[in-house]
């Protein structure tokens, strides 16, 4: 159940496929995945770039704890979290969460749980660069439910 922090752009779909290839064929029936991608607009303003900061060590630990908690709550076969850090451009993926399970209810619930728990617990911070060259810290996340 890997957790990966990526300082360079990553292809979430390729990573999902590569991890899935390590699982036994026919063992899981449901795969729920979520990809967060950087938009070129936030709160009505044009955004041209973003710096994503994290707390090395604690971030990985929290992401692993999030997966651990999901495993306690749902019968899941495997899970994957990938999160980008560093300088990000609009259109680039920021985060990937994937859950493989026998049935869809657990896959959907656990995948969404990973995202919400990650957003409330894992220390990441976004600083946006606007079109006029100014910078601002993102102060809160949008609601997840």
């Amino acid at each position: 159940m890997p957790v990966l922090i990526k300082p360079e752009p990553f292809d979430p779909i390729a990573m999902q496929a590569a991890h899935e290839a390590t699982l036994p064929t026919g063992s899981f029936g449901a795969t729920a995945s979520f990809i967060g991608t950087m938009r070129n607009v936030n709160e009505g303003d044009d955004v041209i770039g973003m710096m994503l900061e994290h707390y090395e060590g604690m971030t990985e630990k929290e992401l692993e704890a999030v997966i651990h908690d999901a495993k306690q709550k749902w019968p899941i076969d495997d899970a994957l979290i990938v999160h980008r850090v560093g300088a990000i451009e609009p259109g680039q993926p920021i985060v990937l969460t994937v859950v493989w399970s026998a049935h869809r209810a657990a896959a959907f619930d656990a995948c969404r749980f990973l995202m919400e728990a990650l957003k409330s617990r894992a220390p990441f911070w976004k600083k946006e660069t606007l079109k006029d060259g100014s910078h601002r810290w993102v102060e809160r996340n949008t609601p997840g439910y």
Partner: protein
Amino acid sequence: MVDPKSDMHMTIRVKFFASLREQIINPNTEVDGSQAKTIGDVWKLATDVPMPPHVLCSVNLEHQEPDAPVNDGDEVAFFPPITGG
């Protein structure tokens, strides 16, 4: 700042992240562990300003409340609400 000749085991390392790192000017990145019983004490030893509301804290990579105890050798971090994902 801590006297560099002091015993390293008697210090608590202090980190600030994101907007807090930009706002807190010249904080102490090590404080005397014998003078700090809680995270709140660490803040007071490390900065000249009151702790803003909504600041989050950790000790040794675990989320903690500001009244949580600290010990020599701990790593204490302060950061704003997190905005990943």
